[in-house]
């Protein structure tokens, strides 16, 4: 039989005591939380009203002097003020002749002209649809102004005292008190222009719509996407043989250019060509041309000086198409005026590329200018 160690006995007893304390001492037992308890008293509505009346009532003021009632037989107090005197009425002074009423000055106005009254009653139009107003469904396009000049770009009317010129320049004038006066310059502006001709019949009485448009209902989703019809192929003219001969003639015509006059160096850029084209078309006035001349295309050759000015004597018509010889002559003269007028001060062309623009062929095609 094994021997029991004293230490073991003490340890076992101590563990048994601890376990017993844990189990029986309530180490893992939690106390229930304390609940605040408020005492409630049932109050009737009458009692609640009485309580509220007491809370809202003003506090009573103590110690208020109360006047004593007068004793019997006491004399009434004497009045300190006297009797009110009647106001003295001053009669108005009578005059023999009343002054005449002044008449306000009224500026004389011309009698209105009798208005023209139509004998017929205006006809009432019945709207065909249940719409709030029969107005365009889209906003009106801005109507071109009826200006005497028609140009590719519209130009607003300038100030009345501004001189019309091809180029807009601000006015330069000496300031008062300035010691050194700058070079004076008259203000200029391009002439007023519209982009198309507007007849009296096409001119609207007012460009603003009379009423707004009722918003339209959202369209239903299309069942299937519509496919635009393919454009018909343009008919192919049977002009192969003409095209061949034209192309060959044009190609061969370059052979006639002397070697000394052939251009060399870098070509003009597209922007430089456009600038020259715009400069010429600003002076190409077809307003006085006949209908036939407006259907005639002319090709004009011009030799340019290094200053950018056209050599007037060199301007010649190379060929024309679409009209008679007389119509071509009118069209050529208009083209010649355009080249000379707008080149009077020299076209803005790059000097270093002079060899490229010394000889110019301009095709004046008035197709877009017939009726605008």
């Amino acid at each position, binding site marked *: 039989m094994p021997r029991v160690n004293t230490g073991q006995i003490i340890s076992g007893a101590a563990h048994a005591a601890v376990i017993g304390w844990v189990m029986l001492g309530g180490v893992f037992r939690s106390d229930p939380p304390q609940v605040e308890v408020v005492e409630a008293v049932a109050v009737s509505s009458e009692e609640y009203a009485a309580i509220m009346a007491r809370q809202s009532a003003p506090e009573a003021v103590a110690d208020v002097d109360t006047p004593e009632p007068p004793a019997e037989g006491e004399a009434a107090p004497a009045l300190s003020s006297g009797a009110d005197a009647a106001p003295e009425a001053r009669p108005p002074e009578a005059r023999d002749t009343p002054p005449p009423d002044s008449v306000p000055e009224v500026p004389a106005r011309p009698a209105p002209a009798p208005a023209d009254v139509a004998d017929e009653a205006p006809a009432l139009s019945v709207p065909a649809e249940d719409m709030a107003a029969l107005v365009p469904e889209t906003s009106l396009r801005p109507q071109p102004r009826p200006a*005497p000049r028609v140009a590719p770009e519209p130009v607003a009317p300038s100030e009345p005292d501004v001189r019309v010129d091809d180029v807009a320049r601000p006015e330069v004038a000496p300031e008062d008190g300035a010691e050194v006066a700058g070079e004076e310059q008259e203000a200029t502006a391009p002439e007023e222009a519209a982009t198309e001709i507007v007849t009296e019949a096409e001119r609207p009485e007012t460009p603003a719509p009379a009423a707004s448009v009722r918003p339209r209902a959202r369209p239903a989703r299309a069942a299937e996407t519509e496919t635009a019809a393919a454009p018909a192929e343009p008919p192919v003219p049977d002009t192969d043989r003409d095209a*061949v001969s034209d192309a060959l003639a044009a190609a061969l015509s370059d052979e006639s250019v002397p070697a000394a006059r052939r*251009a060399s160096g870098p070509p003009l850029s597209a922007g430089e060509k456009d600038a020259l084209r715009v400069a010429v078309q600003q*002076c190409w006035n077809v307003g006085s041309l006949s209908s036939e001349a407006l259907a005639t295309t002319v090709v004009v050759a011009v030799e340019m000086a290094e200053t950018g000015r056209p050599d007037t004597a060199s*301007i010649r018509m190379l060929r024309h198409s679409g009209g008679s010889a007389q119509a071509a002559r009118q069209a050529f*003269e208009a083209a*010649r005026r355009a080249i000379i007028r707008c080149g009077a001060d020299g076209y803005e062309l790059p000097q270093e590329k002079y060899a*490229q623009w010394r*000889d110019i062929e301009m095709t004046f095609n*008035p197709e877009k200018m017939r009726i605008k």
Partner: protein
Amino acid sequence: MRFFLTLLAACALWAMPATAQQDGGPLRLEITEGVIEPMPFAVPDLVAESAQADDFASRIARVVATDLSGTGLFREIPAQAHIGRITSFDSPVEFADWRAINAQALVTGAVSLDGAGRLVVKFRIHDVFAGQELGRGQQLVGEQDGWRRIAHKVADQVYSRITGEGGYFDSRVVFVSESGPKDRRAKRLAIMDYDGANLRYLTDDSTIVLAPRFSPTGDRVLYTSYETGFPRIYLLDVADVGRRVLPTMDGTMSFAPRFSPDGRTVLYSLTQGGNTDLYTMDIASGRSTRLTSAPSIETAPSYSPDGSRIVFESDRSGSPQLYIMEARGGEARRISFGQGRYGTPVWSPRGDLVAFTKQSKGRFHIGVMRTDGSEERLLTASFLDEGPTWAPNGRVIMFTRETQGERGEARLYTVDITGRNLRQVPTDGGASDPSWGPLQE
């Protein structure tokens, strides 16, 4: 072979730009957009080559300038702005002086009197910027009291040389002159220059007259008169104002006459038994031929310039519309399909357009369309515009515009076929029913 040529052309076209860029071809540009504006011009006073002609030097220049400015295609630079002076007809022109004021065209001239006391006018037209004469100088001779006609002829030449179109300044207009209140308006035939000058009355105001029409040569006038109580067609000689009634059947009404291009035939409307149809009458024999026989109203006929076709107004479709048929009659083809009523069609002297009156949405318009009815273009709009007539060059239309109300009055207006340059023709009092005659010989 065809394929080979096409290939060769393609190669040539492909190589061409390179040639132009690299081997020295000219720079090529295409100008497609320009401006439309009146051309500035100058007409200094003519040089008076004799003291007696001094009085005409300025007056002729003023009429020329007014004619050209009135077209809307030209803009006169006033004499106050002139820098250069023309002191001799044969001296060279200092073009720089005229370029400086931006005159693009210059008209110089001289006037003198010949041994018979007739006016002799010489003139030249110059392209200022090109620094050269346009065409050759010309000379006109006429009586002194015809100085306005000489001026108109100069203006016609200038207009024609610059625009390429025929002029219309030396022409006359016959019309109905109106006077008096609206309910008792007196009407009589009158004739004047295109610009309102030289007014002369052809009839008195004892009877109502309507719709005068010039003959192609301008020496006769057809018109409708109520002299007998019924409308009848009369033929009047402009020179001696002699007139005669054209023979038509008794109990009928004849009206809306118009000459054929050869001046031998009258095209007119005749109402019989409540129906109106078109007829032609040979003026020499007085024999009439019926062209239409529809139950509808056919009226306002007008010949094409070559006399092969007729445009007229008919309500056979339910409302007045325009139709074209062969000059001998037959099937008519409708050409107007727009909204509204169309009437009084007149064929252009050029043959390409028909001018008409249109009533739509309570307003009246003068418009033009091509002879197939396409490209309809309304030129005017007002309370009442009607009765267009063409200028001899087919570029300008004259018509009647009447204002609204008790004091409304009829006046004559002109408008360019582009719809620009709407102008009132100066007349002494009311005027209606114009008929523009041909250029005078």
